[in-house]
C-alpha cells in the first residue's frame, strides 16, 4: 500500500477513534492509515481487552474477504490484449533495410565486376589477339570449319 500524506487534522487516539479505524480498515494494522498507525498500536497495547474485542470482530470479516480470490488471466486473454496493441513493425523495417542493403552491395559488386572485366578486356586485348595466331578456332564455334574444306566440293 502506497503512502500519501493525510492532510486531515487527525483526531486524538481514543477508543472511539480506534474503533473507527478498525471498523473502516479491518484488523490488520498494515492496512491502517499510515499517519495514525503508531498511535493506534500504542492505544491497543495500552487497552488490550477493549482492543482485542474490536480486533477479533474485524478479523472475522477480514477472513471472509480474503477468501475472495480471482483466477489469473488466461493466456488467451493475455494474447488478445497484446495482439491489439499498435506496435512498431521493427522486424519488417529491418528486413526492408537489410534487403536494400544486400541489393546495394550486390549491385556494387556487379558494377565492380563489370568494370574489372572491361578493364582486363581492354588492357589484355593485344595479348588475346596475339594468342589467336596460335589457335584461330577460338573465334568460331565447334561447328565451324575452314573455307578450304568446302572449296574442293
Amino acid at each position: 500500500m502506497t503512502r500519501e500524506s493525510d492532510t486531515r487534522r487527525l483526531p486524538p487516539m481514543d477508543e472511539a477513534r480506534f474503533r473507527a479505524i478498525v471498523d473502516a480498515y479491518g484488523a490488520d494494522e498494515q492496512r491502517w492509515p499510515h499517519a495514525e498507525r503508531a498511535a493506534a498500536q500504542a492505544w491497543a497495547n495500552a487497552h488490550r481487552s477493549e482492543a482485542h474485542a474490536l480486533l477479533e470482530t474485524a478479523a472475522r470479516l477480514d477472513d471472509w474477504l480474503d477468501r475472495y480470490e480471482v483466477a489469473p488471466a488466461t493466456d488467451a486473454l493475455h494474447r488478445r490484449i497484446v495482439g491489439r496493441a499498435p506496435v512498431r513493425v521493427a522486424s519488417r523495417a529491418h528486413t526492408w533495410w537489410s534487403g536494400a542493403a544486400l541489393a546495394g552491395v550486390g549491385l556494387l559488386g556487379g558494377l565492380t565486376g563489370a568494370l574489372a572485366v572491361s578493364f582486363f578486356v581492354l588492357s589484355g586485348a593485344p595479348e588475346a589477339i596475339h594468342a589467336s595466331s596460335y589457335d584461330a578456332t577460338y573465334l568460331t564455334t565447334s561447328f565451324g570449319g575452314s573455307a578450304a574444306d568446302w572449296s574442293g566440293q
Partner: protein
Amino acid sequence: MSDREIGRDAGCDPDAELVERVGRRDPAAVRALVERKLPRLLRLAMRMLGDRMEAEDVAQEAFERIWTHAPGWKAGQAKFDTWLHRVALNLCYDRLRAHRETPVDEAPDLPDNAATPAEHMEQRSRAMQIRAALAALPARQREALVLNYYQELSNVEAAALMGISVDALESLLSRARRNLRTLLIERGEGKEER
C-alpha cells in the same frame, strides 16, 4: 473528476518509463505493461462486477485506452496506476448502469486449491457467498472497499480517486464492512443456530 485531476502527486511514478516506451510503440514494453497491469485490472473489474466475462471485457477495453493515450502521456500530470484505476472503474460503472446492478448468483471462477471434494465445496460456497455479498453492496461502498482493501490503495489515494474526502471514504468503508458482516457472519450464524 477529470483524469488530470487525479493523482497529481506523480513525482515518482513507477510506471512512467514503461508507459513512455509503450507510447513509442515498443513491443517489449507493451508485453511488460500487460504483464504488470492485467492481473490487477482483472481483479478490480471482477470484484466490482462479479462476472468473469465482463471483467475480461473491461480489462481489454482499459488496455485499448492505454494504447490510445500512451503516446500523449506526460509523466507528472497524473500517476499512471491511478489514472488506469479511474478508467477501469468508469468502464465498470458503464456496465453496472446497463445491468442496473443485477445481483450475480452464478458459480464464481476460482483457482481450485482445495485438497478434497468437501473442501472444494466449502471453498466454492464461501467464495460464492462473499461474491454475492459484495454484489449486494451499494456500488460506492463496494468501490471504496475494493480500492482500499483489495487493490491496496491508501486511504488518501482511494479518496482522491473517488473524488471524496478521506472522512467520507472511511464512512463508506465502515458501512460496507458493517453490511458485509450482517450478510456473511450474522445471518450465517443465525442459520446455524436454527
